[in-house]
């Protein structure tokens, strides 16, 4: 193969089920020899936030928002059937029973497969998230032009 084929994903949603779909496709594409970029924006940023560490955000409103919207791969909820956390708890248990990796494990797998994970700079700016709000191995922030530049060269582009 001469140049690697590319795939670019926009992850807008921050729910467990949607994140799972995104990471399944991203890791599979990487295993098929594709060059994968995941662009996280808005609620999707919650997936790649650190589970632990101080609450980020400058100013009162951003602090409050980031306390209410804590994020981190272990805090993601289901988009449906959450039932005050019971549905999410059941789903995580069922996934484990069937040897399905958790979102956390998927993120680590993605890093090992050289999948580029990039937070959207505008969302980060509005929500008040600095680079160190995200887990290790997440690349520095980029904007819409970067995404479109990647998407133009990609064979597969998805918005999740």
């Amino acid at each position, binding site marked *: *193969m001469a140049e690697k084929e590319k795939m670019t994903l926009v992850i807008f949603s921050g729910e467990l089920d949607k994140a799972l779909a995104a990471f*399944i496709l991203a*890791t*599979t594409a990487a*295993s*098929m*020899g594709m060059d994968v970029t995941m662009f996280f924006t808005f609620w999707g940023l919650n997936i790649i936030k650190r589970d632990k560490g101080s609450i980020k955000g400058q100013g009162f409103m951003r602090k409050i928002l980031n306390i209410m919207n804590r994020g981190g791969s272990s805090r993601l909820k289901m988009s449906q059937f959450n039932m005050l956390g019971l549905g999410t708890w059941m789903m995580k248990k069922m996934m484990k029973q*069937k*040897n*399905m*990796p958790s979102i956390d494990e998927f993120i680590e*797998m993605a890093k090992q497969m050289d999948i580029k994970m990039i937070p959207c700079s505008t969302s980060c700016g509005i929500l008040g998230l600095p680079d160190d709000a995200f887990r290790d191995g997440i690349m520095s922030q980029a904007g819409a032009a970067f995404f479109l530049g990647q998407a133009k060269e990609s064979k597969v582009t998805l918005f999740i």
Partner: protein
Amino acid sequence: MKADKILDCVGLYCPMPVIKTSQEIKKMKTGETLEVVADDKGIKQDMPAWCKTTGNECVGMEEENGEIKVYVKKLAV
């Protein structure tokens, strides 16, 4: 069918068999065959598709008692 290596993926669901295959194939030499054993039916469609895009060859498939054996021959470097 004879294989140089066996990869046990029983109990794993998509995309794990494919990802494990890609990791295993990387360690093997060109021309060698990997036997992937799985019980997720999706593998019957997934593995030929994976082979096609990566330039490897799916040389055979056997199914018995709910276990699917897929033979992948490494062709791409």
